[in-house]
């Protein structure tokens, strides 16, 4: 830290960041990102993955810093928009907002939708602020330590991230881990960088650069979701029509219930967000449970308790921010959405990781300071614009899905000005739909696809340095600890299942 001290350094970094984030161009793209993010998040059926893959082609032609600022805005903007759909329609705009339905929708039925929306905006801002502060304090420290990591530590860290993300995301752990490795396999298609040999290209020139991230993400998430949703269209029924600025003013009782739940939510979210494989959905569910537990009147929950909206929304926004810590400091994303952002950064020629802080401080701190700008914009914009977002909810799906398809098609075509990416989208739409039918999860596949090539590089490097000796993967304390966590992630669910079985057998006797 040298002679200027930790806070002196932080202060100068903030100055660097602000000078990047506050240029007119970057401010404009931040505004555009959060507005489009809120818009898409409010549309039911469009989650953060679809929003990012749909709009990535638009950012492709921007300068890298502006592109990442805009993508960041889309990413956390969808969380704001998603809660609007949860409260007014009882249909979560994104999975992370599902908890907001539990008490937000009852509030709307009691005619308190406007208060629920304004308190959500405020608590989201509190959550995001805590998340950003944690990030500013800890990211540089982690990056500094990560500079000492060798290939074995990196390999173990990637493995840990993949295992955690796939086995904790719900559903069958075996299927999740299998899809991660299936994704790793897809990531290996293309020219092998160390030998120059083409792998799995089947003579196609277009495949030498690998299967496109965009085609996979758009096909497997965007188009598959469309196919599954077209037939299920239901007319949207909005609960509360009178959402005026006046009705958004919270009562004194609401304000009294605001601070502690939002700070508790922010703390839980910030912690959960940094762990691999958890993400904002788990953060919001956990903070709802905690809030119900600490409440003196738990019977109010589920019937329109405002704490049940405030805490989870603070938590998911905090988690969305702190999820950037492992992605930017180690180059290892903990969730599929961050994996997509990481993949997009790689396409832009940016390598997130410990060296990014040293080599591109303007970009790193610019992004962090743009989070402040973006969240402030969301807070300011959402209150007067809420009427527009309410109307967005009533857009029928039969007008929406051709529009999504249009952005997918023209976006996929425009990135390389080639139709090959369109055929990739079509192929992965079929694969994604097939996976959905047989119950194989798509999100771990994306994570594996992005991390696969990195995993191979670290694997090979480790074994080259050790001349083929596998003990090199666990002969240092950090990699030993990581290996232990990997083993626990795999072993604990198996042991729990065995214990359950034995208990059931005993009770049957």
């Amino acid at each position, binding site marked *: 830290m040298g002679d200027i001290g930790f806070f002196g350094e932080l202060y100068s970094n903030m100055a660097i960041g602000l000078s990047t984030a506050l240029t007119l161009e970057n401010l404009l793209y931040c505004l555009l990102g959060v507005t489009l993010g809120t818009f898409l998040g409010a549309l039911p059926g469009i989650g953060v993955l679809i929003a990012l893959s749909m709009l990535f082609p*638009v950012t492709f032609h921007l300068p890298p810093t502006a592109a990442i600022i805009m993508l960041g805005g889309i990413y956390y903007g969808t969380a704001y928009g998603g809660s609007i759909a949860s409260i007014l329609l009882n249909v979560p705009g994104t999975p992370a907002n599902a908890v907001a339905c539990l008490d937000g929708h009852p509030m709307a039925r009691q005619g308190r939708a406007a208060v629920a929306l304004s308190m959500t905006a405020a608590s989201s801002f509190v959550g995001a602020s805590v998340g950003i502060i944690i990030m500013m304090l800890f990211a540089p420290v982690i990056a500094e330590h990560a500079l000492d990591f060798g290939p074995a530590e990196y390999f173990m860290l990637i493995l840990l991230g993949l295992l955690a993300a796939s086995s904790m995301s719900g559903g069958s752990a*075996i299927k999740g881990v299998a899809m991660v490795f*299936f994704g790793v396999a897809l990531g290996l298609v293309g020219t092998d960088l160390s030998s120059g040999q083409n792998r799995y290209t089947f003579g196609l020139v277009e495949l030498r650069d690998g299967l496109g991230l965009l085609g996979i993400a758009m096909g497997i998430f965007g188009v598959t979701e469309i196919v599954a949703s077209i037939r299920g269209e239901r007319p949207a029924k909005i609960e509360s029509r009178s959402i005026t600025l006046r009705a958004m003013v919270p009562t004194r009782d609401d304000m009294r219930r605001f601070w502690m739940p939002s700070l508790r939510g922010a703390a839980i979210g910030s912690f959960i967000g940094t762990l691999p494989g958890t993400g904002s959905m788990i953060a919001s569910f956990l903070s709802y449970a905690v809030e119900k537990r600490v409440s003196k009147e738990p019977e109010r929950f589920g019937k329109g308790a405002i704490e049940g909206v405030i805490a989870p929304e603070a938590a998911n926004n905090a988690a969305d921010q702190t999820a950037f810590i492992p992605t930017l400091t180690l180059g290892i994303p903990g969730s599929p959405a961050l994996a997509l952002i990481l993949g997009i950064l790689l396409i832009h020629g940016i390598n997130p990781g410990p060296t990014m802080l040293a080599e591109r401080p303007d970009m790193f701190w610019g992004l962090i300071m743009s989070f402040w700008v973006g969240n402030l914009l969301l807070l300011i914009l959402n209150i007067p614009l809420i009427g527009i977002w309410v109307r967005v909810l009533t857009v029928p799906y039969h007008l929406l899905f*051709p529009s999504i398809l249009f952005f997918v098609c023209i976006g996929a075509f425009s990135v390389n000005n080639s139709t090959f990416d*369109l055929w990739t989208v079509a192929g992965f*739409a079929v694969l994604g739909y097939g996976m959905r039918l047989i119950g194989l999860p798509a999100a771990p596949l994306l994570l594996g696809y992005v991390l696969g090539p990195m995993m191979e590089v670290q694997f*090979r490097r480790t*074994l080259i340095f050790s001349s083929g000796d596998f003990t090199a993967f666990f002969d240092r304390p950090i990699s030993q600890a990581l290996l232990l966590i990997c083993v626990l992630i795999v072993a604990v669910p198996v042991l729990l299942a065995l214990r359950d079985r034995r208990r059931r057998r005993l009770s049957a006797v």
Partner: protein
Amino acid sequence: MNTSSDRDLVAACALILSGLAFGFYAIIQLRLGTFAQMGPGMFPFLVGLTVAMLGAALLVTTALKRRRAQTPVDAAALEAPDWRTLALVVFSIAVFALLIRRAGMVPAVFAMVLVASRSSDDLRPLKALALAAVLCVIGWVVFVLLLGLPIPLLAWSF
């Protein structure tokens, strides 16, 4: 495919087959090398093997589950496949891919929206045409005017 355990058996077989195919390609097409001197095929071979082994693990656990529970508990709640919608949506993307270079953006967007609209009962042809026109304008403004991409509006090169 009626129960979730039937579905898991299909998933397990799909994983085993794709893992084996991936690993097999590595053996016959790429050089494996040794662990100290790895060739381009070693890591893909290991990855394919892992996928196949996880598929086998799924097969075994599902088979055990089936033997224990004679009556399937969760037979319901499986999504029925909707091949017609899938075919129409994929076909609409294919039509776009075939037309965008040869005929330009306007015909490609109209054809894409018209094909896709057949999958929805609510999107009547006239409404679909109007929607396609709006999308063409948006596409022109965003991608041609603002981003300056060389996408022709109309072309003729079959």
